[in-house]
């Protein structure tokens, strides 16, 4: 047994060490619990997806139809015009990248809509599930849905039209990262609108991304737009991606500068989306719409 004077001197160090160990254990336990809750939500959406083959088929159906249609358009024009013959795969590439943007947001928003359709949102909001955990689970589901939809279609594009999207290499990773970030930022904002306004805002989930389509210059260069619209177009991160794709496929040049600018804009968009979601959630808590969401 240590003398009292020595104990008094030494104890604070042990107390501090114990407190630090306890707080680290608490943080680790919180982190593990958080992962369990995210896994629970991913499991929940996977159960729904696995239990419905029409939903699974739908994930592939539209991307496949789009890719085939634009693929044949490109083949036809390519036979008639020299420029398009050089620009091999720009339409198919644009369609595949557009589907990443469109289906990424839809995959995110559909997970959220599942909760409102099934009147389950209040059950989740009174559980220990944090909004950020729900958002991460929806991001994971958006990636899973995209993989189910896009991977088979990209293989068909290679077999039928000889367009190998994976041949873009590292550029494809940059394109994908920027497009998926945009889709999630928009998805988060749409989810906030549904929280605030109920299913009256559901149509936003299906249509909001089409607002991007003409301005993001999916199938044509930004230079085609009137100059006043070009300014608006360059405010959208996907515009940089589609310009970057054309630079890669036509000029065989990877424009890292465009990808960095897109990433910076995406960060801003993501912050706007997250802040908007938090504000809309607060408004929903004030207005009492959280208990009323449903069909």
């Amino acid at each position: 047994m240590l003398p009292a004077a020595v104990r008094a001197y030494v104890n604070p160090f042990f107390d501090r060490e114990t407190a630090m160990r306890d707080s680290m254990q608490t943080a680790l336990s919180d982190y593990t619990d958080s992962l369990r809750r995210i896994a629970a939500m991913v499991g929940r959406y996977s159960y729904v997806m696995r239990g419905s083959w029409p939903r699974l088929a739908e994930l592939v159906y539209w991307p496949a139809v789009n890719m085939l249609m634009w693929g044949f358009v490109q083949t036809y024009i390519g036979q008639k015009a020299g420029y398009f013959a050089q620009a091999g795969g720009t339409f198919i590439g644009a369609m595949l990248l557009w589907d990443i943007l469109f289906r990424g947001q839809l995959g995110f928003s559909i997970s959220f809509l599942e909760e409102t359709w099934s009147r389950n949102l209040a059950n989740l909001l009174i559980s220990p599930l944090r909004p950020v955990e729900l958002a991460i689970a929806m991001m994971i589901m958006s990636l899973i849905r995209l993989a189910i939809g896009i991977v088979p279609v990209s293989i068909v594009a290679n077999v039928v039209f000889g367009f190998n999207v994976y041949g873009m290499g590292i550029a494809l990773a940059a394109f994908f990262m920027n497009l998926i970030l945009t889709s999630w930022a928009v998805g988060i904002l749409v989810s906030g609108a549904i929280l605030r306004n109920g299913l009256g805002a559901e149509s936003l989930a299906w249509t909001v991304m089409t607002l991007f389509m003409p301005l993001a210059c999916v199938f044509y260069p930004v230079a085609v737009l009137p100059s006043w619209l070009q300014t608006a177009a360059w405010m959208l991160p996907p515009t940089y991606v589609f310009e970057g794709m054309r630079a890669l496929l036509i000029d065989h040049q990877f424009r890292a500068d465009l990808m960095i600018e897109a990433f910076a804009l995406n960060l801003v968009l993501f912050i706007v989306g997250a802040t908007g979601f938090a504000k809309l959630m607060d408004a929903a808590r004030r207005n009492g719409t959280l208990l009323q969401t449903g069909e």
Partner: protein
Amino acid sequence: MTQPAIAAERLVKLYQGRPAVDGISFTLPADSLTGLLGGNGAGKTTTIAMIMGLLTPTSGEVRVLGADMQRERFRALKHMNFVSPYIDLPMRLTVRQNLMVFGRLYCVDDLADRIGVLAREFDIHDLLDRPTGRLSSGQKTRVSLAKALINQPKVLLLDEPTASLDPDTADWVRARLERYRSESGATILLASHNMNEVERLCERVIIMKKGQIEDDGTPARLLQRYGRLTLEEVFLDVARGSSGIREPVL
């Protein structure tokens, strides 16, 4: 002094300037079963929504297990749960899948064992692998209660848990709630229109009218105060404002 399980302090909720809840205060001690009575629009569901943190009070404060539900709700939510016929479980999921999802959300250890216990307790063993959407009202209520008890909550909020149930199933549900309370020492707040239910289960009754607490006491005390034989008669007196507090009739 022991900390109350639920403490509401001068709670106000205004919708477009009109009060849905108008300055109510009450505390519920741990290990208690309290009924919240009131007609349509009395403010029961609004009160429960504020207790759960689903609704932001215009002013006032709610604490559950010591946690301020506006600022630190996640500290309390893992120890709470809720049943309402107006909230569903995902219908495409089987009962087992739903219980697995909510068990994981509440980080329940030994989840398979817990689901087994609840399946026996609520007689839902044969329903576990059926889609939740294909169950009858009574079966859905039993599954909702199983979900509500998956985390063995210290605070359980029930909004008309036996609405639309036949008398036999409703009685069965009440017996399960009584047993859970006696075994767990949980605090239960029950909002109901069913006076027999409140009379049978609750040791305390809070009666709300137009967003305010009109009366608060034990069922026996309320019967005595209003000179009535049943809580239904007391409720009608309060709801219609047809009679003031009477002298005890004995």
